[in-house]
């Protein structure tokens, strides 16, 4: 059973629709720590403000996720769901993330290399430096386009599985063992996005 965590951060319809399209029928959209603990896979979608992840802590979902991933359950965070895997975000300094990966998410700079940089970063941008050992990005080629919409971004680390360039490189995907996240929206990224979700479902 796949647990899709609902923490009231935007619209889950698209993610659920994509999972169903790929043949995943055994899933539950949930706020229950028990469901997270018993799930075979966990998906944490989310668009919107980092502050909304506070509900995860309040509902006991942070602890349940921590315990579940420690037993090897595959976890996929999408957009704010990826950012939550870090220690926190300057978007909501009082809200702590899971801290599975080090560092803080930060806003795009207002300018880069002397040019104004628009924010949010909206649209199709390419994946670069895809780590050959990434299971999440298997059969995804460097230069493939994915759809983004965000104003905060995650820093690079040794676990970065792919980068994207906008005001310099940021973490497009992260992966260490069973814990994975993507800043882009695989459910809105045409065939490339479906391939990423397919890879996750196949774990």
């Amino acid at each position, binding site marked *: 059973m796949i647990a899709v965590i609902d923490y009231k*951060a935007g*619209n889950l319809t698209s993610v659920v629709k994509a999972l169903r399209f790929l043949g995943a029928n055994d899933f539950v959209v949930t706020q229950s720590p028990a469901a997270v603990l018993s799930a075979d896979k966990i998906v944490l979608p989310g668009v919107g403000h980092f502050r909304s992840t506070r509900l995860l802590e309040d509902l006991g979902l942070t602890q349940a996720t921590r315990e579940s991933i420690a037993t090897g359950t595959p976890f996929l965070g999408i957009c704010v769901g990826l950012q939550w895997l870090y220690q926190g975000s300057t978007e909501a300094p009082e809200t702590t993330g899971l801290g599975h990966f080090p560092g803080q998410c930060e806003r795009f700079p207002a300018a880069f290399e002397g040019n104004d940089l628009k924010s949010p970063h*909206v*649209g*199709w941008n390419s994946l670069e430096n895809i780590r050959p050992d990434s299971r999440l990005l298997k059969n995804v080629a460097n230069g493939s386009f994915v759809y983004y*919409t965000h104003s905060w971004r995650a820093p690079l680390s040794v676990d970065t599985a792919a980068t994207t360039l906008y005001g310099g490189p940021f973490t497009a995907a992260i992966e260490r063992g069973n814990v994975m996240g993507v800043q882009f929206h695989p459910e*809105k*990224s*045409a065939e490339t996005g479906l391939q990423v979700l397919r890879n996750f479902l196949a774990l």
Partner: protein
Amino acid sequence: MLTKRIIACLDVRGGRVVKGVQFVDIVDAGDPAELAHRHARGGADEIVLLDITATHEGRGTLLETVKRTAASLFVPFTVGGGIRSAEDAAAVFDAGADKVSINSSAIARPALIGEIGASFGAQAVIVAIDARRTKGSSDPVGDAEVFVSGGRKPTGLRVIEWAVEAEARGAGEILLTSMDSDGVRGGFDCELTRRVSEAVQIPVIASGGAGSAAHFAEVFLVGRADAALAASIFHFGVTDSRALKAEVAAAGVPMRLPC
């Protein structure tokens, strides 16, 4: 590299896609779900469905159309027309839209922008602006005025000021339609698009006047648009998005190719 987006727009009335020239001469162009998928397969970066009648009685039909269209569409999908409240927006999101486009309802009650954004995120709220240059003004572009009711009714609002206010109230994108150029395939209003794009931080989608690949290249390079929307040039086999994007890319604009 971040690419510029080509957005296919489907104007829908009573569950069918139609396209008029300057909002009249309506021609039937087919089934929305079928056309949306054809556009996505053909390389469109995004799909917009606008309910151009947006009558109260038609809402059920629209939501059914949205649901049917969204079921297996995996590119961003925006729905506009007749969204007057956060509840209307919620129904459209629930049917499978990723973003809503609001126009006259945002002018009537600007707080609506923030209300939808509070529940669904700013990225999900597009404020659509129908603009007309103010002829006879010393600055016809700077003084361009916002119109509603399909371009018939002036509001007294200046386009650039309204775009800035919409951003401040939490809009995620601006969809700027030039009523002067809409439907006549003579090119986008690049000067107006540029002025709006420079006034706001959020992406600006240019609309109205697409007739050739050169028009798209111009609105990206000169008009500084982040995306451009067109309906009529796609529907009757003039070209598809992939062919269009190859031409626009050849002019020096980053495009999602292959797609």
